[in-house]
């Protein structure tokens, strides 16, 4: 099976979907001739031409809005926001229009658009190239939010997002792009949106997280085996809608739950995960639910020491895991 980086899995999924269905097209800033600032769309312009790989003006609301219009027409747009931080001008289009069109048209119209955006920090990106924005959209029924953690998941979930008949936000951790590599089958496979995935089976404590933090948790879990701590890791993969069943099952399995996100702590996705556990697992818990998250400041700072303090990393995860195991 070929080994691929996280970003190669994105390019592969886009390419295969564009070959499969000529209604699929890509639009965004610098996605064409340049192949994207991260090279996620590299080679697509040469293969599919300027009408299917559109270099748009620098206008995020129009990238989303034009995509929504084309999606309602029956096309399958994959819009790229150059950085998740710059999705903000498009929020009105995404929340007021894409998320609501099926509902407000009584199922007569729908907008099958996929909006991809690189999120997350740890790349010296400073305030406006480091943010996690998923919680902005995570209480908007009508939107799905996918945040994969491995190249294998990237390919299967991006294909599923493009084929989905509802709008999907697909957030890719930019540090994962070249850091993470893994086996990716050549097959045309899709993975279900809305389903979490057990990334590691364990019996002592449960970690529930998503995106790059899965990678940190896996590293920390390996180290803790030396101390006899066996960690169970659940990857949410989709942060809206959450996989309630898998969350309850994972929490009950060990009775000790650590929730991790790189986002600011207050109001983040893991608060909702915690509520699901509180509502369903009270008598199965052996310790209070723990959260490890970014601090509650407006954005990730730039200076190396402060950026390092903001980011979740394997050491922080290991410490939190050990404390919970010893509780």
């Amino acid at each position, binding site marked *: 099976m070929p080994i691929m980086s996280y970003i190669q899995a994105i390019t592969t999924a886009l390419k295969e979907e564009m070959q499969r269905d000529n209604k699929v097209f890509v639009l965004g800033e610098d996605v064409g001739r340049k192949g994207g600032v991260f090279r996620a769309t590299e080679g697509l312009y040469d293969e599919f031409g300027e009408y299917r790989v559109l270099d748009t*003006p620098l*206008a995020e609301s129009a990238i989303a809005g*034009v995509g*929504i*219009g084309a999606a309602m027409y029956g096309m399958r747009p994959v819009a790229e926001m150059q950085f998740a931080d710059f999705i903000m001008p498009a929020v009105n*289009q995404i929340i007021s229009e894409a998320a609501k069109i099926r509902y407000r048209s009584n199922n*007569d119209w729908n907008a099958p658009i996929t909006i991809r955006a690189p999120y997350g920090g740890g790349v010296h990106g400073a305030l406006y190239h480091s943010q996690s924005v998923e919680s902005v959209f995570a209480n908007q029924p009508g939107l799905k939010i996918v945040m994969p953690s491995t190249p294998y998941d990237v390919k299967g979930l991006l294909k599923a997002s493009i084929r989905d008949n509802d709008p999907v936000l697909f957030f890719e951790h930019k540090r994962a792009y070249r850091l993470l590599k893994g086996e990716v089958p050549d097959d045309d496979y899709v993975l279900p949106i809305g389903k979490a995935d057990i990334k590691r089976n364990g019996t002592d404590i449960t970690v529930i997280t998503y995106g790059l933090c899965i990678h940190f948790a896996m590293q920390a879990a390996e180290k803790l085996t030396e101390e006899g701590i066996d960690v169970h890791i659940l990857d949410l993969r989709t942060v809206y809608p959450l996989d309630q069943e898998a969350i309850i099952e994972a929490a009950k399995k060990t009775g000790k739950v650590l929730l991790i996100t790189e986002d600011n702590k207050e109001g983040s996705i893991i608060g909702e995960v915690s509520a699901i556990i509180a509502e369903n697992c009270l008598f199965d818990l052996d310790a209070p639910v723990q959260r490890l998250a970014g601090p509650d400041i407006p954005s990730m700072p730039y200076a190396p020491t402060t950026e390092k303090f903001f980011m979740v990393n394997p050491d922080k995860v290991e410490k939190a895991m050990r404390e919970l195991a010893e509780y």
Partner: protein
Amino acid sequence: MMEIIDKAGKFVSKEYEKEITKEQAQKFYYHMLRIRTFDRKGKALQRQGRIGTYVPFEGQEASQVGSALVLEEKDWMFPTYRDHGATLTFGAEMDRVLLYWNGRVEGSVPSKEKNIYPASVPIATQLPHATGAAMAETYKGTNNVAIAYFGDGATSEGDFHEGINIASVFQAPVVFFNQNNGFAISVPIEKQMNSETIAQKSEAYGIPGVRVDGMDVFAVHFAVKEAFERARNGEGPTLIEAVTWRFGAHTTADDPTKYRDQEETEKKREELDPILRLERFMKNHDMWDEDWAEKIEKEIEAELDDAIVEMEKFQKPDPADMFDYVFEEPTWTIQEQKEILKGATK
């Protein structure tokens, strides 16, 4: 400003004289009378508590009818909440439009045949949509055109700029049809922009801009028709400013006397009313027929009465229906909450 007939109902420009027939004048008059009758009834129904908040468009009939009658079967219409005069003219079903104003989601899709996008309530969001639909038509190789309706206030929004800019870059077959009715709720146009006209903004995008008398149904019609022809021929978008006037309130929840003199507005009616102008024109040019006028008035009343009966006998919503069509397949939270509601209302 493009004008074909003046306030006295006389030809200003002979250019279009040959194209204007009695039959066409009657058709325009019929549609304008039809939507005005609907509009006045809408206000009355709201006062009687038979529908919810209503958005009147009286004064904008020439703009809406003149433009809507340009569209062909497969063209796309992207209206706002004040453009049901245009959707009714293009092919929206009257009972469905009434259902919309009665708060029923079934009214959001007023026609199964025509490409009428559900009215945009957020301001200017439909401009990029129209561009996207138009670009998709080009990609597919058809020559269908999209028209986006929007008011003067919308020209201050970012999506006005973004939607037109991207359409101009890609030469998308879209017509941006502005109805400048003088007020965005209470804010007059001179506080909305420093530009002299809305049409002049087209220069910034390198596309044609046309300022047209929005009370002259012929001027509106031919300006929009020419824009559609350019779009169909691959010559890209046009920005049209139809200068019109809103005689009434912003909505039935608005009191315009707080910000303007309504008596002054009524005094302007003789001069401005687009239906009176067309009537004068038809009388001046031997196109008026008293029997015909009486006949269509009765027809319209009957059509409206039937539509109201349909609207009022439409089945009441089941509260559990509110959980439908959030996604193609409901999520677990939606299923769970729907079940709870069903249990509670049994």
